[in-house]
């Protein structure tokens, strides 16, 4: 056992800190208040190679291990959750799927362009009738000679409004559940693809999330990712990695909340001294600090499992995301309380962090679905096979 970061990782941390302090944190408030897509942050990130963070160098990636990637997401999450999630979807959901399942030609076509930020990846899985029950999706891809014809619509497609590349999951056969689903790499400019309504959300207001319509969009057969029928497995595998990234973002945002709360408790005086001297405040700070340390170890462990290619990652990613999203939310809630009335005002970062984090218990698997996955894994060896 060795809990220290290696030399490379320590160097990256310094780099991430500088990058976030200069290129991300200063714009977090305007990104939220003006609901501005974080385009300039993405451009800066591409210059550092962060948009291809886990891609191999031969595809212009930074070839980071997952622990380093988690450190990147932690720092981005600390600075601006909207920016961090935009990048996590691009890298860990879309990029990782291409990296693992793409042909050489697909990798060459997409990964360098993604790393350069010329192409931003969007993930199109959910539909209005298929959220937690993702395998119930109804978008179809009809095989027709050397192409597929896509029909249907996708909801909550993160990055669709700023992305060039949609990773679309569609049904290629009537086989029930996940088995009939295939994954496609679809250019957003394809005739018959329409990026619709941008969701107006409570937080994550820099994130661009849209409904996307497919009305007979023709996709060349070479844009099929993996094999026919493999789509759902590809989605789940990508979600394993993105849940690690998302958990790291929660960790970073919780750290930002704690820093803000701590500073406020030191500076704000009531009853003749800083409120830091009140036990009620101390308890909120202590619980938050303790929970952050637990989150950090969960994140690093899950990232390490990913690096090791360990099959325990599936359940551990669910555990990590469940704990990190719920802890982060309650830490933000406590730190908002420490701020008193100020915490309810948009001038203070904690107000934004609180709204941003409320999405985390829902996005990329609700807490309820994650609990189901964990319980199913727990009961499986006992001859009980759980169905949702």
């Amino acid at each position, binding site marked *: 056992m060795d809990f220290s970061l290696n030399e490379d990782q320590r160097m990256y941390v310094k780099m991430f800190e500088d990058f976030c302090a200069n290129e991300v944190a200063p714009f977090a408030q305007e990104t939220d208040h003006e609901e501005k897509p974080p385009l300039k942050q993405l451009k800066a990130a591409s210059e550092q190679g962060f948009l291809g963070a886990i891609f191999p160098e031969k595809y212009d990636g930074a070839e980071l291990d997952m622990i380093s990637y988690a450190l990147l997401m932690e720092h981005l999450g600390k600075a601006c959750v909207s920016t961090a999630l935009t990048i996590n979807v691009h890298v860990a959901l879309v990029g990782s799927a291409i990296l693992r399942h793409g042909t050489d030609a697909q990798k060459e076509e997409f990964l360098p362009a993604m790393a350069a930020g010329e192409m931003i990846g969007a993930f199109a899985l959910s539909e209005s009738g*298929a959220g937690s029950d993702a395998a119930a999706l109804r978008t179809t891809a009809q095989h027709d000679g050397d192409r597929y014809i896509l029909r249907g619509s996708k909801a909550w497609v993160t990055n669709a409004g700023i992305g060039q590349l949609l990773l679309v999951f569609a049904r290629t056969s009537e086989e029930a559940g996940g088995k009939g689903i295939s994954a496609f790499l679809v250019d957003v400019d394809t005739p018959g693809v329409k990026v619709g309504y941008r969701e107006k959300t409570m937080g994550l207001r820099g994130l661009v999330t849209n409904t996307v319509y497919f009305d007979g969009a023709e996709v060349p057969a070479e844009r099929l990712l993996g094999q026919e029928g493999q789509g759902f497995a590809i989605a789940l595998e990508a979600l394993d990695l993105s849940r690690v990234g998302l958990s790291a973002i929660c960790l970073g945002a919780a750290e930002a909340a704690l820093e803000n709360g701590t500073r406020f408790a030191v500076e704000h005086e*009531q009853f003749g001294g800083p409120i830091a001297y009140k036990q*009620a405040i101390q308890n909120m700070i202590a619980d938050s600090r303790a929970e952050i340390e637990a989150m950090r170890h969960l994140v690093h462990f899950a990232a390490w499992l990913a690096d090791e290619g360990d099959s325990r990652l599936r359940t551990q990613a669910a555990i990590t995301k469940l704990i990190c999203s719920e802890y982060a939310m309650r830490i933000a809630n406590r730190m908002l*309380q420490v701020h*008193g*009335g100020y915490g*309810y*005002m948009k001038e203070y970062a904690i107000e934004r962090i609180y709204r941003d984090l409320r999405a985390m218990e829902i996005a990329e698997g609700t807490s309820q679905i994650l609990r189901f996955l964990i319980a199913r894994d727990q009961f499986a060896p006992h001859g009980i096979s759980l169905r949702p």
Partner: protein
Amino acid sequence: MDFTLPKEYELLRRMIRDFARQEIAPLAKRVDVQEEVPREVIRKAAELGMMGVPFPQEYGGMGAGELGYCILMEEIGKVCTSTATVIGAHTGIGAMAIYLDGTPEQKKKYLTPLARGEKIAAFALTEANAGSDAAAIRTRAVRDGDDFILTGSKMFITNGPIADIVSVMAVTDPSLGPRGGITAFIVEMDWKGCSVGKVEDKMGIRGSGTSELIFNEVRVPKENILGQFGAGFVTFMKTLDVGRVSLGAACLGGAQAALERSIQWAKARTQFGKAIVHNQSIQWMIANMATEIEALRSLVYRTAWMVDTGQPFTRYAAMCKLYGSEVASRCISQAVQIYGALGYSRDVEVERMFRDARIAEIFEGTNEIQRIVIASDIMRQEGVRISP
């Protein structure tokens, strides 16, 4: 013991509920987006007597006591927290201070137009460095012949931007502190030297204006001293006690609305081939919400009965506010969770309700202050004096 609501109060509830559904609910989204409760709504509410529910009829009120007022706040709280906040700050604290400690002349002159809704009231206590520690205020009132010269600024004042008449707490003798050194005044905002300062940009209750109020050498006649000279702190604390009961009622309404929406959505939303209400995770959330709501309802209405029957109620009022705000936040967060991603969208009401609810844990005395009030009251009977 008889928990039946008297017939006339049932009728009152029906009248308010109809008004809330027909006149307030349809505007709730607009109120949030446009950051204003239309004056027309206030005017119509006033016509029905809803701006002066707890006050005696001889002063233009409805004479329905705290019970009637809690019914009002519960029903309005169900449909629009911003509107409930405007009415609450007006009736429950702004005008309430005048009702509790005003002279017959003051009540005739000020309470009457307020109770009729012809004028709007606010309650000005908080300052930049005097939030939880209300006794640390610095606004000064210096005697000048038969008048007082009022100078200072108040912060986070609900209804600040629209108030005509404000109950203001100021220091009249810095050597005495809260015991004897602070006096309450009734101030008309159109007097020379009164102005509205910075208007806050908030997470929620965006239709209820919150602002700074600036008093620059405002001449206040001594007839406008509210309550006894030097006893302003007592007047204000007494007022806040009453306000906390009805705030608990507004939270009850918000929590109830969250439960009702959760039930409807859980019935309507299908995942995994069945309505999500058939999942125990959802059933438990609904059962917990319903249980907490019933406990809160009993607490609020019993406390209203204590107010109306002249029993000491300080401890219970603090419990109404503390428990009410936490139950509301919890229930509404669970409603968001049941709605899933849709609950995070500003197109659905639970999103707004989530942002709106968070302030109730902070304003009119943070929940930390409520715990101090409750613990102090309990320990006082044990002969122990608690200092914050």
